């Protein structure tokens, strides 16, 4: 359990600092598989529920979403670099600071042992996902940031031991899948009308 959490955290940090899109998508897919193991390792309840949850997680997070993103990268012919508004050094420093903040916050909230590691790793992923969404320039990287944020919340929830009935959990996955799917469609459409996919350049709507 702890190994899985630490691996998730490391993959998250890799995505936060890497400047290349394809390796980031591969890390995202790897995170999906690890998250799929979580319910099997830790979730309360019957085995079929854990198996169902695990399969749904892997199907959505490590197959469907990375496929959508890879297709976007291929078809849109966007470059390999995921430009950021910040320099790599700043990103590393910020990510380190956010990781520290996440661990301190969890310690102050009196979470203990295994719980604390999972919750803190989850919060770290959430923070770094937010950072990616706000500082990355390309739409694909922003979507990756969004999925990292969702993964963080998922890990945080698993560590806090919150579980819902299977239909609700599946509903949550369906929502995430449709959200990324729609973002993918929008990326294609925006590409067609703008002939570029640089979010900096879309600012016709202003006050």
């Amino acid at each position, binding site marked *: 359990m702890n190994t899985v959490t630490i691996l998730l955290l490391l993959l998250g940090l890799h995505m936060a600092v890497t400047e290349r899109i394809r390796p980031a998508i591969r890390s995202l897919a790897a995170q999906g598989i690890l998250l799929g193991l979580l319910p099997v390792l830790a979730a309360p309840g019957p085995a079929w529920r854990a198996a169902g949850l695990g399969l749904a997680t892997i199907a959505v997070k490590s197959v469907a979403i990375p496929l959508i993103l890879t297709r976007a990268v291929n078809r849109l012919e966007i470059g390999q670099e995921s430009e950021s508004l910040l320099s790599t050094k700043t990103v590393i420093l910020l990510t380190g600071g956010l990781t520290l903040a996440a661990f301190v916050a969890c310690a102050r909230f009196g979470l203990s042992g295994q719980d604390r590691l999972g919750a803190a790793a989850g919060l770290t992923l*959430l923070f770094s996902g937010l950072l990616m969404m706000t500082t990355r320039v390309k739409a694909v990287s922003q979507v990756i940031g969004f999925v990292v944020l969702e993964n963080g*919340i998922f890990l*945080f929830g698993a560590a806090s*031991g919150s579980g819902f009935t299977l239909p609700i959990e599946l509903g949550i996955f369906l929502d995430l899948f449709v*959200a990324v799917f729609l973002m993918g469609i*929008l990326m294609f459409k*925006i590409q067609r*009308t703008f002939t570029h996919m640089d979010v900096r350049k879309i600012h016709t*709507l202003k006050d």
Partner: protein
Amino acid sequence: MIPLLLLAPLAGVILALLSRTPSQAALGTVVGAAGLLAGAVIQGMSPDIAAWSELLRLDELGSYFLLIVAGVHFLCSVYAYGYFRRELEGGHIGPAKVRMYHVWINLFVLSMVVVVCSHHLALQWVAVEATTLFSAPLIYLHGDRRGMEAAWKYLLICSVGIAFAFLGIIFLSRAAGDVPLTYTALPLAAKRLDPRFLRLAFLFFLVGYGTKMGLAPMHTWLPDAHSQAPAPASAMLSGVLLNCALLSILRVAPIVPGAYASPLLILFGILSIAVPALLVAVQRDIKRLLAFSSIENMGIVVLGLGFGGAARPAALLHVLNHSVAKVLLFLVAGDLILRFDTQKIRQIHGILRETPLRGVLLFGGILAITGSPPFGAFWSEFGILVGGIAGGHLAVSLAYLVLLAILFGSFLMYGSDMVFGEGVPRKLSGPELWCLLPACVLLLASLWLGLHVPAGLYKTLERLSTVVAFS
């Protein structure tokens, strides 16, 4: 009853998919909307709570919000029939896109029906996220760059907002221990919940669902999204979707201590009135103007809930008053945009001279939305002021009054510019009756709510305000 309520919009989806012409699709939506409205009225008159499984349950609070959704959806579906015929005749849109509009709008309504019927925190979350997903295609229906930009912002910002609300659910489930997260079980166990996690949960709910509700400073997506969607969809987004996000916050109120929640609500409320008060003065686009007014009105509702006491039923009444007036304004604005072929306020003038009915509708709508007598919003805004003063929030009440006066002035200025003055003759465009009829109904409804708040409604609101009171 609940399966029937879900079936009505689903029938609309199926009819739209089977339809051969845009008119058939529109008719399907009208049929589905009429069915939903009938179901909502029958359920609203019955004293029983409708329940379907553990997860879906329609109590009086849900019923009140459902009636608003169903009423607005019915009027908008009638309007959409005429609106899209005119858009088609004008060559602004293709028949395939009109059909897609009807598919998405019915799915969107379906997800809102699930929101109002949800009896479990997590199911409610799933449904609220679904409302975002089903309404995003409506925003970029026309397929132009502004629409896609607005939809991208909407999808990303609201999804992140909702993700925060999910964090709130995780905190709440930690606070609740083994108490199920249903709206009957939680209030019964309110005393046993861990207060630290409870406070954190409420904060995340407020920020998360507040993003979806358009509360400042998380409102940045709203003016874009609401101004880019086609008029009937804008009316639905402003008139009923914001209410659904509000309902999601109201649902957890009974377990949250008021001493913690009230200052937060007052802060977000007054901020959401102040930001539009500063920004409406520089608006050039009529639909953006209306979108900013939605932020303001959600602020008024949240402020009223924060004041508590007498302001609470007034805040619930304001939900209805805002929906009626705002939907009216979006419908009239959509008609004017087709007629003048522009969204720019400065290019629309002399409406009263050219077409007196539209002049009356627009000016009436502007008076109604700014809370002038004799329209309904006057009573709800006044009630919130009284509640604020009675609750001892003198400074905030004064600020509220000043900001409302500024907004009233700005809106009156825009309104008189558009309504009065020399008219520019425009050619008629398509069947206009279907666009004007729903707007007339809404103006009369707002007037009726202003001249006399029905005793039954008042009693209901009093009862509901005890349901949404903080612990």
